[in-house]
């Protein structure tokens, strides 16, 4: 079992405009309304990079920035774990289209934005961070993979870690074979020690065997949880919003899951 502290939370998704604005909805105190995700230009980035930012970069930077602001930490000082099932899905679609027809002129920006760690690269530039940064993929379990990796960094490396999970829709024809239904991002600042900013303690355990996953009480939020891999983290946010000690379970691979105890401070 790994014990970590949550110091900051970031959220951006359909009808979820920030963690602060969404707390009531996540706690079941207000109705959820699934309006399209309010994507905005990342003000953290220099102008040249801002123009090149696709949806995942906008998601990742928005939620990362919100979480750091809440924690009151300098963005230079934390390691980062980015996790996503896709990456820049619009860009990958465009490149595949370009490569299927002559002339195969892939622009330099398209190419370097196509790497899975593009959001991480832009974040580090915007944040001025030289700390370790990784970019993971676990298909539908990408959020869990990111949380598990973040927890080991906190415990083993004694690091402050920003976990940033994001996913967005593919255009057709890929949407049919990988139907991600919304642009969604969330971030957590995780620390090895309690501080005056600590919001909650989370105890994370990797467990073999299948699980009955914790679901969302709101039907709309449950659709979102299942519609975007990064939104598999919503039950954790709901537990954090509830203000009560809560035990949740999130599926990982075929034969294992994470059991998470959330205790608000």
């Amino acid at each position: 079992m790994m014990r970590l502290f949550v110091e900051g939370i970031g959220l951006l998704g359909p009808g979820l405009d920030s963690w602060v604005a969404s707390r009531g909805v996540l706690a079941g105190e207000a109705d959820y309304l699934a309006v399209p995700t309010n994507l905005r230009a990342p003000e953290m980035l220099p102008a040249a990079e801002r123009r090149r930012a696709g949806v995942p970069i906008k998601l990742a930077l928005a939620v990362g920035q919100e979480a750091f602001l809440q924690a009151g930490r300098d963005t230079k000082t934390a390691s980062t774990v980015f996790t996503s099932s896709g990456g820049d899905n619009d860009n990958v679609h465009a490149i595949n289209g370009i490569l299927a027809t002559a002339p195969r002129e892939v622009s330099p920006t398209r190419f370097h934005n196509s790497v899975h760690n593009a959001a991480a690269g832009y974040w580090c530039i915007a944040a001025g961070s030289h700390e370790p940064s990784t970019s993971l993929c676990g298909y539908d379990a990408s959020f869990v993979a990111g949380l598990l990796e973040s927890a080991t960094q906190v415990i083993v490396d004694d690091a402050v870690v920003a976990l940033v999970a994001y996913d967005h829709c593919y255009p057709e024809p890929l949407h049919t074979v990988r139907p991600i239904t919304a642009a969604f991002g969330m971030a957590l600042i995780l620390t090895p020690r309690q501080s005056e900013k600590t919001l909650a303690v989370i105890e994370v355990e990797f467990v073999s065997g299948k699980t009955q996953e914790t679901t969302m009480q709101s039907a709309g939020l449950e659709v979102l949880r299942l519609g975007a891999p990064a939104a598999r983290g919503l039950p954790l946010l709901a537990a954090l919003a509830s203000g009560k000690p809560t035990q949740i379970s999130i599926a990982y691979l075929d034969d294992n899951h994470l059991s998470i105890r959330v205790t608000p401070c």
Partner: protein
Amino acid sequence: MLESSTLGLYLFLSIFIGSLDLQPLIISHYTLANSLGLGSSATMDALRSRSSGLIPCAFEDVDLETYIAKVGELDSYRVRTDLSAYDCRNNRLAQLCLQQDRFGEAIEAAKNKYGAARIGVFMGTSTSGILQTELAYRHLDPQTGALPHNFHYAETQNSYSLAGFVAHYLGLTGPSFVVSSACSSSAKVFANAQRMMAAGVCDAAVVGGVDSLCLSTLYGFNSLGLVSRLPCRPYDADRDGISVGEGAGFVLIERATAQNPPDQIYLLGVGESSDAYHMSTPHPEGLGAKLAMQRALDSAGLKTGDIDYINLHGTATKSNDASEGKAVADIFGTSVPCSSTKGWTGHLLGAAGITEAIIAVMAAEHGFVPGSVNTQHLDPTIAINYQIENGTGKINRVLSNSFGFGGSNCTLVLGRQA
């Protein structure tokens, strides 16, 4: 000024706070497959005989004038029938590699020892099975625009495909994911395994990486002006870009025990850092590279004099070799023999880290320092001890660099305990 003050602050803090000792982990078993041949001895033989795997580009209908490193066996090869949904060039290469060096037997023994659920699978890849999607986009339904019916997104294109395939192929059910941080991917997996094992999430781990030829990387690197028309020439004054290659490598990592022989090769240290400079160009002063190397030395509890050979990232682009060379010169001066083996293998992108880690292990096992093929005239502006000719001698500890787009840096230290 900014760079040196940042590094100075880091060095101060690392001395002040002290660094956590890495749990002793051993390189228990490994295997390789690339253009030099199938199995680790094929790579070793090619290094000794200075036979490069680079050939003029003949891949699909690519019309670029460049050299590539290709695994010829893949065209007619298929993955195991029960895993046929995973069939794509990247997973074929994974399976072909897993069948070499009796790697499967080592995994069976590990499963008996730890249980399949206690062995993690952490893989690096940059492009996964994207070639499958590139080819599928040529065959979209003319009426509906739909992908062909036999296209399997999750098992081929998705980045996780590789780890999913390896876990299923080997019958492992522990924690698993893919690291996709461009060309540092399969070096960083060593850090994931080390942390997961230290945290008790698993008792052993298969780490590795696979990247295979595709149009995205060939045309993409070409658009950036980073592809050489000649076989790549690392650290040459006239170097003008990379040669794209494909390859795979896997390592079984276990905890050290009293039974390990005195000659045992360990994972001694890992250092990770970020450039925070540019998406596709390394920091000109090698800031991130320096941080990664220093952190790797610190985590290993070693000093520069403890390193006997450096396997450089050495892609043969103007900017990489200049930046990395400056970083190595600043930390090691001209004392440690260095080389890039990419003149043999080409740039294996997401498989570069694992391939060069295994070359580092073999260098220590065989007392062999690979030189550098294709390099003719060393860049006089880079003040490091770069080796063109192969050498021999006692090699106890090797440092291996892997740097990627997005400013993602990782350095490994492998070898015998000091």
